[in-house]
């Protein structure tokens, strides 16, 4: 019992530590990658390859005055950034990083992920509302509408995987992919989940709640210092979370040839998807808010339902 508890604590501590470092490290990775794709250098002065920019950035954010605008709704304003952080970190609890390395191996892991990540919408709505600023409000409204509608088929798109694996448990879903990674039979599901995932993390081209050129910074216009920092870290954690989920559900999780340990395979795959996120930001323009909604409800939702129907039909036909 003693040993099991300490292993658990080690895993929880390790995951938390790794995630926060990854999120911070992504600041550097994103800026360097963007710079690479945009014919620039990016941060390259502080430390080797400019790595210490992470340190400098965090120090700056920590030591900035912790300011709440006098016109804001103070308690809500303070709580909003905490929600995004908490909800994303909660969702990580069910991710199997490698055999045995998982915080909580729930048998309804997938549902837990959906539930936890949905909570993130609150932080946008509350943050934008509490700021008492018109730009923030517009951003919050857009954010709420976007996240709620994309959540609908985010959940539905995953059901194909559940049907094929016969389980909501993420470790079992990974094990079910020993024969074939699910992105081949579930290609459509994968694409839709990935798009919904981008919308969920509100990254370009779905960064409509922030929309720099229209809404300045959207829902977090009034935030500064570490509260802004938490939104920032929350966004990077969100990217990591969606990448982890894509890898777990469609790309065989930790599975891979034996010459590398499972955890390394997992990290490599996740990193590839993080880069894809950044590449998307470097290349695509932003659609309009109503176009995004139209695209979601009129194209993605029917496709998701079709995917579910076909998957179910084929499985029945094969006599599973």
């Amino acid at each position, binding site marked *: 019992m003693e040993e099991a508890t300490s292993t658990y604590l080690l895993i929880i501590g390790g995951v938390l530590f790794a995630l926060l470092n990854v999120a911070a490290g992504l600041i550097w990775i994103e800026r360097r990658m963007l710079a690479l794709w945009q014919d620039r250098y990016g941060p390259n002065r502080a430390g080797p390859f400019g790595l210490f920019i992470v340190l400098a950035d965090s120090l700056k954010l920590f030591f900035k005055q912790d300011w709440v605008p006098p016109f804001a709704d103070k308690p809500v304003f303070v709580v909003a950034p905490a929600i995004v952080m908490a909800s994303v970190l909660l969702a990580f609890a069910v991710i199997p990083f490698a055999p045995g390395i998982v915080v909580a191996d729930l048998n309804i892991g997938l549902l837990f992920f959906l539930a936890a990540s949905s909570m993130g919408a609150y932080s946008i709505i509350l943050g934008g509302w509490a700021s008492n600023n018109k730009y923030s409000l517009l951003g919050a409204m857009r954010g709420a509408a976007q996240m709620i509608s994309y959540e609908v088929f985010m959940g539905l798109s995953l059901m194909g995987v559940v049907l094929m694996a016969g389980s909501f448990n993420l470790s079992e879903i990974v094990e079910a992919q020993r024969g074939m990674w699910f992105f081949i039979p579930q290609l459509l599901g994968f694409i839709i989940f990935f798009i919904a995932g981008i919308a969920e993390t509100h990254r370009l081209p779905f960064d409509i709640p922030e929309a720099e*050129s229209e809404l300045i910074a959207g829902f977090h216009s009034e935030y500064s210092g570490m509260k802004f920092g938490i939104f920032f870290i929350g966004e990077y954690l969100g990217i990591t979370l969606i990448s982890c989920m894509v890898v777990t559900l469609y790309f065989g999780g930790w599975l891979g040839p034996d010459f590398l340990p499972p955890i390394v395979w997992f990290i490599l795959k996740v990193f590839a998807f993080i880069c894809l996120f950044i590449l998307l930001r470097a290349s695509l323009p932003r659609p309009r808010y109503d176009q995004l909604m139209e695209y979601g409800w009129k194209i993605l939702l029917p496709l998701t339902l079709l995917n579910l129907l076909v998957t179910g039909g084929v499985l029945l036909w094969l006599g599973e």
Partner: protein
Amino acid sequence: MENNSSILVELHTRFGEDTFAQQSTRDEMLTLWMPCDKLTEVLQFLKTGVKQPYKMLFDLTAIDERTHQKRNGSPASTFTLVYHLFSFDRNHFIRLKVGLTEEFPKAPSIASLWANANWYEREIYDMFGIKFDGHPHLSRILMPRTWVGHPLRKEHPARATEMGPFQLYDEKVDLEQAALQFKPEEWGLQRESEDSDFMFLNIGPQHPGTHGVLRIILQLDGEDIVDAIPDIGFHHRGAEKMGERQTWHTYIPYTDRVDYLGGVMNNLAYLLAVEKLAGIEVPERVKVIRVMLCELFRIASHLVWYGTFAQDLGQLSPVFYMFSDREKIFNIIEAVCGGRMHPNWFRIGGVAQDLPKGWEKLVQDFIDYFPKRLREYDSMVMKNSLFKARTVGIGIFTLDEAIEWGVTGPGLRACGMDWDFRKKRPYSGYEMFDFDIPVAANGDCYDRAIVRVEEMRQSLRIIEQCLKNMPEGPYKADHPLTTPPVKKNTMHDIETLITHFLGVTWGPVIPAGEAMSCIEATKGANGYYLTSDGSTSPYRVRIRTPSFPHMQMLPYISKGYTVADMLSILGAMDYVLADIDR
């Protein structure tokens, strides 16, 4: 040069010969004085009554005549209103003048006749204190609302040192603070309609989407724009007033900063008018050098527009690629002029220096390099379906609307009219070049983009022709008013020496008269209307800029769209705040 007689006959038949007094000007534009009470009638006739009508109110301004000495026998007046009309059918300008005789005169408004007269009349009221009867909203436009006096009146001080020390009393602080309070009623906006309360969103003066200090007051119903009111003047630096105390020569650097992306193109617009006044004919080499640099600047300006337009729509990368291309152009500009954004390099009667050794290679390298990049941008931006979704069918105006609002340049060509002043009224030797006028049909944001992208290719063609056919010869006209004057003859006779001495110390004395230039600048038609009283500085400098009427059109074309669309509309407009506010 111009066929002035036909319209003159028509006007005389309609209104009688006594109505008009003709004035001769250096630019040979038909210039007629008319009495104030006939104003509306005559303008109405010219706009709708004649067979080939003058559909565009090209410019409207005023002159404070109270200290004007050499008036060339024109009717007495304290202030003169000057209407420039343009007919596309005739390819003809007409200048109508109305003399006013009081210290703070009144004149009838023509805002109901031409949509774009609204802002021009407000500007005149702001700058001269002339009131317009029947104007829907006559208030200050460029100066702050708390400003005392009307800057372009001759008694208004031109510089801070003439004004006494500035002191910010508590009362003044309160006054200024109160003026900053936003009251929708003052802008003619309703707070609510029958079924919804409106939200007022203040975009700017500091906002990442406005590209400068522009404020737009949005009246929103949800995210739909009910009305949009541009509040301009934050970038007003009194460029026209400064002209009245600079010499003809030392005013050139100020022009660089009007359309600050157009660089030497502004010099050209100003100098064409000065050279008309002075009667200078510049050598062929000067013409071609000027054309080459102007076209390089056209590409540079369009590149900035291209990148920032994509960025407004959320595409982050193109702007970096385009700025590095612009850097390559600036390397050429730097090698030739020494300067980059504001080279201040054209001179009265020529250019500052001859082209440097090795310029051909720099230009040739750019010509070889650039087309490939343009093709790359086509697939990156113009063919991108998200980009199309944000721009196709957005911010449409028709050809008639464009003319009514005074739209020129790519905006006009995007409506399907192949009107380019370089082709239709060639200046500075553009008639020698072979290039096409790109047009598009729908007049939406995407079409405006297509026209500009194609224009870059055409500019490149012109530059290539400049490179291949650069004439030999002097880079300055051999004329006494060329500034700085040609020095080689000064040591041979005393007359040249004196002219040279005066030209260098005082600056040139340009003969009395008036002239207007009109060039196809990067953003549309740019014109300098100069009045000389035969002295070392201009009596009045009027800068007709394209962005001013374009911005005026914003409320008209953005109603009913969303906030996000307005960014597309602003981006496709391609304005520069200094070009609006001067």
